[in-house]
């Protein structure tokens, strides 16, 4: 069987898809970009103002001029402050809103996928898509795109302003910039490699830890502590070495970039001083250049970082859109038939079904169940009994043949009506976190009174009443605090409270104590009363009372009839029965 964790690459342009989510906020985004432009201009203007002041000093200007400059500086500061807050806030908000929308879209899509998809895809993968992968995109919408823009504008602005002020000095100042860009690029590359190594080592040590902690009992029982410690230490040393290399890379790179910035400063000061001495530029200009050349270093390094983040965001986006492109759906008919009421006649007509298009688990299965009839399916594991149950609720579509409910093909019925009419009970009862009554009611509009009635009717109230908080007793993750029998009874109450017309159930084989088993049997009889019931049965007592027994083997129905008929016929069933009675 194929597992969907390495999904096929998403076909189509991820970036275009991502930008399309920004569409409703176009105005806002452009407004922010505009603010960013102004802010960048401010950033460039601030050193200029101080430089101007220096020139005033040099010319022994009036204090009034200084105050003037200060006022301008103050204004730039104030507007910069306001614009910056506005811009950051608006963009972050947009990012969050897009995330919310995206999450909803993904969740809706996941909900609509068929059970086949869930059989093959680990839950963890899907959770990651909805949570972490979307989170990774936020970075892109609210930060990276704008900062990328801002840094590019800043670099272009700096280059332009410097060239405008003094072309020769500007060009000299730029000499080392390509080296910085190259070094940063090189560093990224090396850093990524070392980072990957530390990640692998860390994953290795975490995997080893989690394995050894959960297997500690076995390690101790077999007395293998020393050997496992050695293995762990080896992994730990590997991690240490990877961390050491990473630290070394950073320790070398940062000072290197620093010394480059010193070189650049020396270049500017050296050639700038020459120019000052030649009276080509003022001292203030020299100050401005010295400030500007140092403002170059940050945006260049940031750009590299931002491209890396952008890349990982795009990787997440690709995973998300691959999932969104998944179309293993059980699709609703465009004009679904809505029946006045579902009486409960079920017909399988030459049904062929395979979960994977290849290995048929049902082969040409046909039968009719009249409203109110109770049918038990009997057969070994893998005979196809459970598949029949899955098909009635249309959790999968059949490959060949038809399934009719009240003489309408179920593919034409509204899924909602169909599933509401079917009370499906699994062997493994799923309980949600919440309370007992919440688990009976689910999210539907069912009164507390009805919840209690349902629980009483199916004998569940006996154990519920004994709980400290009764119906409001909390249910923890997956109902771990309840026994298999109690869970079974709860699921009966849940099913009954939703008043289905058809009962579909997989009888539990779990170890249930005799007392509870009696309660369950009694509850079942009550539940089946007046309802079409299809069940996979394991207990002879349940089977005997069915109106019709279908014996399955290898995807086919071998025998059908009542208990007595089948006994008389002397086939498989009779043999089984005799074995049991010996």
């Amino acid at each position, binding site marked *: 069987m194929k597992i969907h964790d390495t999904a096929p690459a998403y076909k189509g342009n991820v970036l275009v898809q991502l930008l399309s989510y920004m569409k409703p906020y176009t105005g806002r985004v452009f407004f922010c970009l505009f603010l960013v432009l102004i802010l960048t201009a401010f950033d460039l203007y601030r050193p200029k103002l101080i430089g101007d002041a220096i020139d005033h000093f*040099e010319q022994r200007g009036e204090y009034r001029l200084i105050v003037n400059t200060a006022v301008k500086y103050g204004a730039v500061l104030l507007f910069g402050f306001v614009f910056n807050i506005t811009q950051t806030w608006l963009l972050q908000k947009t990012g969050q809103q897009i995330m919310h929308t995206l999450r909803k879209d993904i969740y809706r899509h996941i909900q609509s996928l068929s059970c086949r998809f869930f059989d093959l895809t680990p839950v963890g993968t899907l959770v990651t898509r909805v949570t972490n992968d979307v989170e990774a995109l936020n970075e892109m919408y609210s930060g990276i795109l704008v900062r990328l823009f801002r840094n590019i504008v800043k670099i272009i602005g700096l280059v332009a302003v410097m060239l405008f002020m003094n072309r020769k000095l500007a060009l000299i100042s730029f000499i080392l910039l390509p080296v910085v860009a190259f070094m940063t690029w090189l560093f990224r590359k090396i850093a990524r490699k070392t980072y990957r190594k530390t990640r692998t080592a860390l994953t290795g040590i975490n995997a080893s830890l989690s394995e*050894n902690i959960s297997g500690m009992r076995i390690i101790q029982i077999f007395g*293998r502590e020393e050997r496992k410690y050695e293995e762990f*230490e080896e992994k730990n040393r590997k991690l240490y070495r990877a961390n050491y290399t990473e630290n070394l890379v950073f320790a070398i790179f940062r000072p290197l970039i620093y010394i480059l910035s010193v070189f650049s400063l020396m270049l500017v000061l050296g050639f700038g001083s020459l120019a000052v001495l030649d009276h080509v530029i003022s001292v203030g200009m020299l100050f401005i250049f010295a400030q500007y050349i140092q403002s170059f270093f940050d945006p260049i390094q940031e750009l590299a970082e931002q491209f890396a983040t952008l890349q990982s965001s795009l990787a997440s986006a690709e995973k998300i859109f691959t999932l969104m492109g998944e179309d293993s759906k059980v699709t609703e008919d465009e004009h679904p038939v809505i029946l006045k009421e579902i009486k409960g006649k079920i017909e399988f007509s030459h049904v062929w079904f395979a979960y994977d298009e290849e290995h048929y688990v049902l082969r040409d299965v046909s039968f009719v169940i009249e409203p109110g009839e109770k049918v038990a399916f009997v057969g070994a594991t893998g005979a196809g009994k459970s598949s029949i149950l899955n098909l009635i609720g249309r959790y999968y579509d059949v490959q060949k043949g038809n399934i009719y409910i009240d003489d309408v093909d179920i593919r034409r019925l509204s899924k909602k009506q169909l599933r509401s009419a079917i009370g499906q009970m699994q062997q493994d009862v799923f309980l949600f976190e919440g309370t007992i009554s919440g688990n009976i009611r689910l999210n539907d509009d069912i009164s507390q009174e009805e919840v209690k009635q349902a629980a009483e009717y199916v004998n569940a109230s006996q154990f519920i009443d004994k709980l400290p908080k009764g119906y409001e007793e909390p249910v923890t993750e997956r109902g771990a605090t309840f026994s298999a029998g109690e869970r079974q009874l709860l699921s009966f109450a849940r099913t009954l409270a939703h008043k289905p017309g058809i009962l579909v159930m997989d009888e539990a084989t779990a170890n249930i104590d005799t007392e509870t088993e009696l309660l369950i049997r009694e509850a079942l009889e009550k539940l089946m009363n007046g309802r079409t019931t299809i069940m996979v049965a394991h207990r002879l007592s349940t089977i005997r009372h069915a109106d019709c027994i279908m014996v399955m083997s290898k995807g086919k129905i071998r025998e059908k009839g009542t208990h007595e008929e089948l006994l008389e016929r002397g086939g498989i069933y009779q043999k089984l029965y005799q074995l049991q009675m010996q």
Partner: protein
Amino acid sequence: MEQKAYSLTPYLLRHKGYYITGILLLLAVDLSSLYIPQFTGNLIDGLAGGNFGMEQVRLILLKILAVGLIMMAGRFGWRYFIVGASRKVEYEMRNDMFRHLESLSTSYFNTHKTGNLMAYFTNDLEAVRMATGFAVITVFDAVVMTLMVLGKMILYVDMKLTACAFIPLILVAIGCYYFNIYMEKCQEQRQDAFSLLSDRVQESITGIRTVKAFVQEEKDFGEFERISADNMKKNLAVVKLRAIFGPALDAVTGISILIALLIGGKMVLAGEISIGKFVAFNSYIGMLVWPLIACGDCINTFSQAAAAFRRIASIFEEKPDIIDKALSEGELKNIKIQGSIRFNHLTFQYPDGTEPVLCDLSLDIRQGEMLGILGRTGSGKSSLADLLLRIYDCKEGSLLIDGKNITEYPLAVLHRDVAYVPQDNFLFSDTLEENIAFGLSERITDRPELRKSIRQAAKDACIHDNIMEFPDEYMTVVGERGVTLSGGQKQRSSIARALLMDAPILILDDAMSAVDTDTEEKILENLVSLRKGKTTILIAHRISTLRKADHVAVLTDGTLTEYGTHEELLANKGFYAHIYEKQQLEKGLEEEQNENS
């Protein structure tokens, strides 16, 4: 033995050379960093005063270069030494933590979830590492830098100007401190909202079949939307804080510069300070910003690390409950278990339990006997195995091996002479060969001839043929990145692992539940012939497994309710007979299917 409280000091002392060197280099860097603005200021002064020629300019440039080179070397050094030392501390702590965990008893692991223990090794250790590495640098740097820059500003430029410009900057430190506290609160809420979202999605997807069966999609989606919206709200709270904080920081620095401009400008014009000093002063303001931010940050880093360290130390405070008799290798060799077991009015309760799981149980198992144990879940079957393996201790005198109290035997002897096939079939992500040889004290690499016995054990456990079908045969790696074994294959591998030990006592705890009946039959036959003269305890749910046993004991709620041979128990018409009948039907269906194919 009195043990000192777990402390960080020994780790730090072990690397004191690294820390001292690092801090000295840091000091050198901090000292030199002041000179570049000063030299730039000198240059501008000289140029503005008109008394500078290219000669002087060159001299200043050389000074700048010298300082730059010193700083480069120093910056490399402190990172190398201090961060390097913190990595070493981390490495050593991790080893020590693991070693200590290995010594703790099963009850500790029952009450502490793997996820939580993992968090000690990841998040908490990380917090401690940050505090012993970067935070050391930051705190030292911040304090030294602030003092030095302030000194420079006062001495080299002007006292009054410094005082005025510094006032807004104090706000930065105070602001950062409170910002961090408030931010942490917001982050926590955000984290909680995020976990809630994760849990919700996890639960809904796991229960998707139930959701679909009860047509709950719409309502489930509504609930999801509400949680996602809440998540957005909590995110926005964090975002809002950040959106204000960054620009505010910028603004405060700007105000300092503005003050410097207004007051300093007046002073320049009045001739009280030079232009160059004014320029240097501007740079100094810039240099003060980050140490002040760092001050606020560090307080947080240290308080988090302290909490993390307390959690880690709590592991070390834990003591093992099982006290072992430590003996030398030679002595261990001389102690040999024969294999007769006696439960003598055994009553046992788990340390965290509220009522006994075994009640006044008396049972004799002769050496060489094969005993079957049957009972419902929770009847106390596995507890018997736990006691025999001394995972827990029971009352003195209630469990005897070869007539001696089980506590008389060193753990190493028990682990050597009692082989065990656990219920949960835990295999390590290692090669199958290593997994099967797990119970042997020798290593395959040291004794390659072991391979033969490994293969024999695998054949006896009916897993050999499966293994040979795997791409790398016995070298196939189990688990995550290797071949995933089916439940039955895992069970049979653990059986092979136990058989290979050829121990006087073998316990199989529900070890064949996932093995099909034919294979089970074969394994049982092998067991009977291999275990001749050696004691075997078979815990099972299936009668087919128990049929081969000499005697079967039925446990009900911790007491022995039935005991005898298969025939005796069937005649008894009790629980055993009842289960037998029930299982006949399943077996019949199985056989029917096989006949048809």
